[in-house]
């Protein structure tokens, strides 16, 4: 019996709600915004991916070109070290010349790749705006 009273109470509960049209219009507006954000996020992901690909290519090409020129750089480094006043330290440096050259090539490639990534993103940003 008591249970029926509670049931009736809640079944007859009809609070005044805001306009259904307004509520649905607000929902549609929120969905539009959500889809816009999703589209923009998706486009941004594509742009990032493109920039990464370009950066990797640039890094690879720069690294390849510098590697091709490596013998020339190594000779230059050896000549440079030999031309310096004689000293045990400089001889040791000459031994390390090859390693240092590799490191330098690597650093230049990374730097170029990073710059290419930044430039690509900046260019895409300008295009979007």
């Amino acid at each position, binding site marked *: 019996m008591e249970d029926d009273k509670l049931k009736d109470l809640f079944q007859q509960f009809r*609070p005044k*709600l805001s306009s259904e049209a307004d509520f649905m219009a607000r929902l549609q507006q929120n969905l539009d915004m959500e889809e816009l954000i999703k589209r923009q996020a998706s486009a941004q992901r594509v742009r990032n991916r493109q920039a990464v690909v370009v950066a990797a290519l640039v890094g690879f090409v720069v690294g390849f070109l510098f590697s091709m020129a490596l013998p020339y750089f190594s000779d230059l480094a050896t000549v440079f070290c030999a031309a310096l006043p004689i000293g045990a330290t400089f001889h040791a440096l000459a031994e390390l010349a090859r390693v240092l050259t590799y490191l330098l090539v690597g650093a230049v490639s990374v730097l170029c790749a990073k710059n290419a990534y930044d430039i690509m993103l900046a260019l895409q940003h300008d295009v979007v705006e």
Partner: protein
Amino acid sequence: MNREQFITYVEATQQAFRRFLVALCCGDSQLADDMAQESLMKAYLSCDGLKDVRKFKSWLYRIGYNTFVNSRRSQHLMVDDVRAENVLSKEASDDAFRYEELYAALQVLPDKERTALLLFYMENYSVKEIADIVDAKQDAVRQHLSRGRAHLRNLLKQ
């Protein structure tokens, strides 16, 4: 589920869903509307994960309940203040006046008891369905219902 289908399902369920949230928010229809919008956005974003569209309504109620619980957790003090203001400011409103007693009683009930009662009596969900919605065991839901009934009867008698 595409957007048109989602809107169709929402149109069919939104009134009952909003009524449930109004009762859950103890008459604060503004807060309930905000919560309904938030729940529907969450539902839209995850509707691809809904395998059985026949369960759309109970799935939506589950999202609504979780949104309510999260909102209570994050803004516990603020919600209480806002609710108190709303109860006062709506005294003049016919609707608030009509259900003033019920809202006051629901406000005293713990969230779990209130939710179980509303789902059981307003939406006619079974204990099992309520357990799915609130992510609790059936025994726990039975207990919430039993305690909630007793509390509500006492409060309404007073």
